[in-house]
């Protein structure tokens, strides 16, 4: 084989190795940092991971927000109008957090309660995110203000 061809083969091998490394790194890094979104009903049906981090989406149940006076601890229920799950959080809630608006929280289950490390409500009634629309559509079909079963 002539030198050009050998160089070319080397180049191809190097590129393949680089692509393989890049591919596996991306897969690995993505798997480590991927979180799924579940609704309270899905959580009740044991579809969400028992011990892993996931995102819980739904509406903040009316009248469920409880603060412990003088601390940052807060708890509220997230509902899809069929079931609800109590969320515990310690920290400052976002501006758009209100009872009756849809939110997404990240955290894990502890017993029957969801301990949230992050609460997102980047949107109001006009700007409901695509991800929540499907979950909310179901809730709307129920035509109820009830927060569902605990």
């Amino acid at each position: 084989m002539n030198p050009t061809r050998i160089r070319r083969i080397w180049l191809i091998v190097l590129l393949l190795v680089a692509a393989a490394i890049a591919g596996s790194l991306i897969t690995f890094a993505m798997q480590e940092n991927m979180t799924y979104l579940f609704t309270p009903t899905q959580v009740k049906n044991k579809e969400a991971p028992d011990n892993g981090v996931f995102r819980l989406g739904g509406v903040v149940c009316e009248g469920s927000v409880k603060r412990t006076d003088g601390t940052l601890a807060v708890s509220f229920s997230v509902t899809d109008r069929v079931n609800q799950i109590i969320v515990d959080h310690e920290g400052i809630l976002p501006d758009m957090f209100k009872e009756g608006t849809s939110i997404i929280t990240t955290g894990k289950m502890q017993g029957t309660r969801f301990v949230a490390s992050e609460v997102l409500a980047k949107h109001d009634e006009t700007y409901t995110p695509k991800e929540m629309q499907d979950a909310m559509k179901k809730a709307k079909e129920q035509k109820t203000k009830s927060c569902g079963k605990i």
Partner: protein
Amino acid sequence: MIPELGQISLILSLLIAFLLSCLPLWGAHRNNTVLMQTARPLAHAQLLFIVLAFVLLTYSFTVHDFSVAYVQRNSNTLLPFIYQISAVWGAHEGSLLLWIMILCIWTSAVAIFSRQLPDKVIARVLAVMGMIGVGFISFMLFTSDPFTRAFPVQSEGIDLNPLLQDPGLIFHPPLLYTGYVGFAVAFAFAIAALIDGKLDAQWIRWSRPWTNIAWAFLTLGIALGSFWAYYELGWGGWWFWDPVENSIFMPWLVGAALIHSQAVTEKRGSFKSWTLLLAIAAFSLSLLATFLVRSGVITSVHAFASDPARGIFILTFLVLVVGGSLVLFAFRAPGKEGGQAFKAYSRETLLLLNNLLLAAAALMILIGTLYPLFADALELGKISVGSPYFGFMFSLLMLPLVMLLPFGPITRWQSEQASKPIKLLLPWAILALGFGAISFFFWPGSTIKTIGGVIAAVWILCGTLVFVRSRFKSSGNGFTAEMIGMVSAHIGVGIFFFGVLMTESLSIEKDVAAKPGSSFSLRGYDFQFKGVEQIEGPNYMADQGTVVIRKGESIIATLYPEKRMYASGGNSMTEAAIDSGITRDLYVALGEPLDNEGSWALRLYVKPFIRFIWLGALLMAIGGFIISFDKRFKKRHANEANP
């Protein structure tokens, strides 16, 4: 009446854009000078009517013409005058109009500043830009007309989204659009070159200054957006790897790669196909960004409306542009890579690595951003890819980039002995490592990131200065604008990474429950909460807190963070208060009231060196601007004037 006039201007501009996309192209094909020369006047006419439409829409905002649906939704009589103007591009329809106006400005600018270009080239370039105009003006007219009347007419408007009532909004979208729409110029030049089939260094020399200016504007726009998020969103973060940020960061990365590969192609004739491909990719990613932001397929503060028709229209346009240009590329790209050959260690190789790393970074962001969309479409579940993925992958790819950066400028084209630059840079590498080690013990709470930040800054700064020194030493060679710009941008990269890594590793963030009079100590700063009182603004009421910050005995600053309720209703808005400094920002945001005794949740941050992030970006942008003024781009060659 006025809105109808605006409507008519839009329709006229669409017709003109259509003519612009056909006549000159046909002329260039037929060698018909008259047809080719229609390009410039048509470009200016297109701009004229779009500007007219834009002015009329602005007028409708300032006279509160709530019979126009778009005005009604995004303004009200209480809105301060300056925000009535910026509300024009505050939501989907208007921001699309701004997009188009900026495209037309670029088109006209190319028409004006390209006197030295042959008629044929300019005819094709402007025609390609006209085609983009046709796509976007019809998109606006058919799916998102800003002049649609509202029935029945309301007496009061809703409001501009309070998040957007901020000086940041006045400049952020125009700068950003100027940047990524500007890649249309490089794209048009590439397509024109492909149609022409003559792929010499010439077309690159013509398009280089445009790419640099567009990239510089994009840099400013992104930096401003990041700064805005930092002080407006009240979370104290400056980058969230949010899908919208990602979508705009991809064209930036590819644009940065394009700037470098254009330099190689212009000077050495190498990487021709690659440069063409990057020019196509940069603009396609800009279109993708427009699609992602405007179609509402992703969740974000930027996604204002989701209308399937809009998404499908842009997606079709995107497919046409990407597909069409790739097909053209497949048929017309140079089969043989010309240009001078280069050895394994040469400036070409280093720039190739730069390009691969930047392109890989863009690709990994693309995968991370689009994967959730595909997963959702394929019913694999609703996934979000967390920011650690992007952070990890990006650091991994930028590490070699930073390491190699100082080698580029001091390595010769074609072939260089690796020992020479290594000898020049070795002392500085040791110095950088030394500083890194010292910094670890200097700042309490240092991590590996702190060390990395210091090393990166010292290494890039010294390495770039080595280039400056060697340039001074070499007999009588001055500095071209291109070199000065490069030095500025490279130093900017060093300062940027310094800011990022220092902020990431040394920031202290604390959410506290504060009683009036209570104090909190963060990294030697004493934050004392005095309490909250009510104040009144032009179109809002606010709870205003007072926080006194002391260091030792002396008062450093008194901050007044606010929580605003706008008169138009809707949600409350956090206005953080920041005491900024070169070495640190002190940041206070109000949370919510916690009890009846005046206690509030407070968010207290100390952010070391965060200003360096934007300072670095500013230096990169300035570098881009300086480069585009290089004399070499103004030179008129005999064969250019008369091909």
